[in-house]
């Protein structure tokens, strides 16, 4: 399965900044860089070092770091088909949705046979989002995007007056069904939070790309887990965990794959067992993510060994 991230947000929120950041720094994915394919609206907005560009055509840019960029001019299905025909295939696909796209509809492609949804990330312009959310043309669309978001990047918070950020956060909490909200400037957020993290990474190995205020937690054990134990574990986790990935042996010879991104929590059961060790890793904001609390939760839910 190929990881699939839907990147939404209205015009001017900072989506392109984030796209450029992803293109330049895919090595920040943990524990190793991935071949990321980005489906984007307009090549004109792409701002990367010319040396990084290996080749380009009207509809595709290949980067030296393994990333690929495709336009959405011919529509999402066509672009997706082009990507799937690449050799080697991309390991992760990010679609930059148009400013008025229904991100929830788009995310449904991540529930099929080839793509696995790794989250709906919506970038928000902290200065203008409240005004846009009641705009006669796009208000309903914006509110729908916020509601669909798993993770919200509240961008440009440096432009807010004192106290406004707190108001915005409570306004967002009301609108969004409790999506995780990250305040940021220039969409400067570790890539592992935005896209993916590998459950096999130990917390000490996770590269936060110089973001000192993010923290990690990891945990591993031998014993297989039951569905009930896993449910107890996930319901003990709140939005202090921005992203979490786990791979567990289950008691019936298969495994569980856990993915949490903001408010989204998916558990997938597979019949074959690909791991000997159960491993889980989580990322959150330093000081909010509490490793001791997560240790205690895991300890309570999972038996350490057989």
């Amino acid at each position, binding site marked *: 399965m190929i990881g699939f991230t839907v990147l939404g947000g*209205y*015009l001017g929120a900072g989506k392109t900044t984030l796209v450029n950041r992803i293109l330049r720094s895919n090595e920040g994915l943990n524990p190793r860089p991935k071949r990321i394919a980005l489906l984007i*609206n*307009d*090549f*004109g907005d792409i701002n990367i070092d010319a040396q990084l560009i290996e080749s380009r055509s009207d509809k595709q840019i290949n980067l030296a770091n393994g990333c690929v960029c495709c*336009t*959405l*001019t*011919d*529509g*999402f*299905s*066509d672009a997706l088909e082009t990507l799937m025909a690449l050799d080697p295939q991309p390991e992760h696909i990010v679609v930059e949705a*148009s*400013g*008025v*796209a*229904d991100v*929830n*509809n*788009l995310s*449904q*492609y991540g*529930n*099929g*046979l080839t793509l696995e949804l790794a989250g709906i990330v919506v970038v928000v312009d902290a200065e203008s989002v409240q005004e846009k959310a009641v705009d*006669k*043309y*796009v208000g*309903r*669309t914006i509110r729908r995007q916020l509601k669909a978001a798993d993770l919200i990047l509240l961008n440009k918070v440096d432009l807010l007056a004192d106290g406004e950020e707190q108001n915005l956060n409570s306004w967002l909490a009301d609108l969004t069904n409790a999506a995780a909200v990250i305040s940021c400037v220039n969409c400067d957020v570790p890539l592992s939070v935005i896209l993916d993290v590998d459950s096999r990474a130990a917390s000490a190995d996770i590269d936060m790309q110089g973001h000192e205020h993010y923290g990690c937690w990891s945990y591993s054990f031998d014993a297989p887990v039951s569905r009930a134990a896993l449910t107890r574990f996930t319901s003990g986790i709140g939005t202090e965990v921005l992203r979490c990935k786990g791979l567990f042996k289950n008691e019936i010879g298969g495994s569980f794959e856990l993915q949490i991104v903001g408010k989204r929590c998916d558990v997938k059961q597979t019949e074959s067992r690909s791991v000997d060790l159960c491993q889980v890793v989580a990322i959150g904001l330093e000081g909010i993510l509490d490793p001791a609390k997560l240790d205690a939760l895991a300890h309570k839910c999972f038996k350490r060994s057989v």
Partner: protein
Amino acid sequence: MNKEDLLSITIYRAKKVITMNPSNPEGTHVAVRDGVILGVGSLEEVAGWGDYKLDNSFSEHVIVPGFVEAHAHVMAGGMMLLPYVGYFERKLPDGSSAPGIKSYDALIDAMKLAESKLDDPDQPLVAVGFDPIYFPDQARLTRHELDKVSETRPIYLQHASGHLATVNTAMLAENNVTKGMNIEGLGRDSDGELDGELREPAAMSSCKTGNRIVQMVNHTEQAIRDLGALARNAGITTCTDLAGASILAPKALSMWQQITNDEHYPLRVAQYNIPAMPGAAAAFDEVADQFVELQKKQTEKLRFPGVKFVLDGSIQGFSALIDEPGYFSGEDHGQLLTVPEQFADWLRPFHRAGLNVHMHCNGNLTQQLAIDTVEKILREDPWLDHRHTITHAQLTTQAQLRKMSKLGLCANFFSNHIWYWGDQHYDITVGPERANAIEPCASALREGVSFSIHSDAGVTPLGSLHTMWCVVNRVTPSGRVLGEIEKISPYEALKAVTISAAYQMHLDDEIGSLEAGKKADFAILEEDPLSVDSMHIRDIKVWGTVLAGTKHQAAIPED
């Protein structure tokens, strides 16, 4: 036809020739040389051009300008390649009709019949035209009904809206679509089992062995030929293909050129491509240049007058963006397909390049954006004669008409909605007041907005007489008259399917009326649409067409 024939003069005698040329409204004879009209009048008036051959074959017919359909899609032809199982009867290219399907039992029978005609047992059965909106008292159609058609052959039933499909169990199995899958658009019963309904592209493309066929048919040669046959049967001599083919792709262009330039092909086609998929951006400056280059490749029968933008969804799908007080009932899914602040940037390169732009707006709020954007770019780049057009324009308000008139914007009303969805608009979607004002032709006339009327074929069938009939009578299947006051005369309706349609494509100097120097494109009718009982207009028989002086007789169904 040899060269001598071309240069020779033919005078067609008719019971009546209606020209739509205000300075010479009618006659009994029309003289033609080399595909061009020499004049319309009495025999005496048109005989002086030289030796002529008098053609009496239309002496009992009425000749009107060949109809111009300004909003249709090659899909009208493409869907003819698949069995049609819609609620209303539909004419086929060979002149016969597919009956309207009024019950689930009839649907199953029709699909069984289509199934029995497929030789290869592995070939999926793909049918089109079903619309659940006409079965409000029935339980939603599920895979179980389609399993009665076949339990082994995969079946994909595309709905008329294009946004939904219903499939059978074999189709789900063939594509490994299981209930464990989380795609939201997969319909489920109360036990969580898949019910076979697929909503929106992500779910529809999960059954790709069926979905692929629906996408493919429109890109075939036969689709273009069937479009020509359907148009000819309806008296249409110029038809748009809006957003139908990626004409900038060399393969598509050569296919269209090859077919339309064949002397037996009975239709002029005006291509209005979309510069990018709805909502997607592109380097529009470059795309505009490409369209200008493309115009240099146009021929007599294949034109590239401009481009189309799709700005929202549909009213019956509740996805058109409408202003306060919103939808009458049902959940509002209204959504723009473009960021409002960006639309001027998208439109500007085409406007500057002198390309005519048709903007799909079903909702009046969407239409407001289109109008305001055109005003903005006109302030920057004045072009008095742009003839940009709001197409569909169904819920156009009075204020919008006043403004469109000032800005030189044309309207292309989706008048067939009055018949096909008029009752649903009154009862369900927008309520009585707005339903009565839908497709406001009389108001457009009063406010001086040049307008055409259309079928949006294959959404509804090609047929300009039916389209005229809708705006003249404004009746619905339940017998309701939708807004008596918005009715227009048969003459104004005829204008809307001839010269005014040509006008909004900048083709009115060549087609759309019968005048000296213009193309000899005629619709040959058995009765006069201006004097028959107005309820009879859609039943007038069409002999066929004359295109640039060449006769194309409509297909006559075998009994």
